[in-house]
């Protein structure tokens, strides 16, 4: 179980209809690659976030497959068009089965 995992998301509270807004996400996670060895020479087991998704009102915005080369505290920034008021849902999937999520409402006007 990875410790100290905490998702963070930055989404503007308001947008014009049809406007492309910039979304920033960060999850603190050590992203252990599975390639490193400890002092005794044993492999440290892989423990990473392997998938990240963002949905808007149930519709997929972005779906990312993450591999071990991605470093500590993965950060994603992307633009999304907001057609109407609604809610962004962000989900991170951990190797150990844990799922972390975060939601942000966007108003239109």
């Amino acid at each position, binding site marked *: 179980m990875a410790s*100290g995992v*905490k998702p*963070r998301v*930055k989404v503007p509270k308001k947008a014009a209809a049809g406007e492309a807004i910039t979304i*920033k996400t*960060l999850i*603190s996670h050590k992203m252990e690659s599975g390639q490193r060895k400890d002092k005794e020479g044993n492999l440290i087991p892989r423990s990473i976030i392997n998938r990240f998704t963002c949905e808007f009102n149930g519709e997929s915005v972005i779906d990312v497959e993450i591999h071990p080369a991605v*470093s*500590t*505290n993965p*950060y994603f920034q992307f633009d999304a068009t907001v057609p109407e008021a609604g809610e962004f849902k962000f989900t991170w999937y951990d190797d150990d089965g844990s799922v972390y999520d975060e939601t942000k409402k966007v108003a239109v006007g």
Partner: protein
Amino acid sequence: MKFKAMSTIAALAITVPMWAMADPDDDVLVLNGETEMVTKTAAPAHLSDAMDEVMSGWHFRSDETQTMQADDFDNPGMVFVENAMAAWETPEGSEGKSCASCHGAPEDMAGVKPTYPKWNDGAETVYTLQMAMNDCRTKRMGAEAWGYDKGPAIEMVALMSSVSRGMPMNVAIDGPAQATWELGKELYYTRTGQLDLSCANCHEDNYGNMIRADHLSQGQVNGFPAYRLKNAKLNGVHSRFKGCVRDTRAETYKPGSAEFIALELYVSSRANGLSVEGPSVRN
């Protein structure tokens, strides 16, 4: 022969723009779109015969790195500050106290970081912020002292620094701290190691030039603790000193040693007037 002449021309063509790139820029650092930071200002009086203007290391970094520091969400150092916020509230040690029990909110400590290192009357010596914290931990909380520049300590320094961002560095160099400051100044100008370099050889005589593939800054400490992209963690002032002294190929002093405390006081006094930036983002 012809080949040699051509390669000289090629080398010139490559190096000329590199020199230009190494100069500090004139960008303005505005934190979170609100706080305008002082990153260039007139040198403090004691430096007047050495330089006219002091500049934050922020000016020597690429635009991308500069932008990361301008927004708390983009600044990877703030992840560590959040860890310290949790530690601030967590009672530790035999007395069952946390930092918050006596000091209130971290924001109440704004203005503390810019004055350190400073003279401590009780201990009759110059204290760095980490020493003051460990004093609290061992004497008031009954907890174990943190290792110098180690994870929890450096995160707490980053929290203290983050609430003071935008305030000018203001360490006292007169009064009882003067002897320590003089020692720090002596260390700053003393050449060490096989390369026979003092701090001043790089950071006073050659800032703005390249040292191999990197820019030499003025070596100001107003941005510490610094999140370095090369090691993806917060770095303390003393650890940075150690790295620099090591790079002169000398045996280094230890983080937390009397020499580094004196050097921190002296180097901090060179930044008097610059805004506190920590946690900053550097290469």
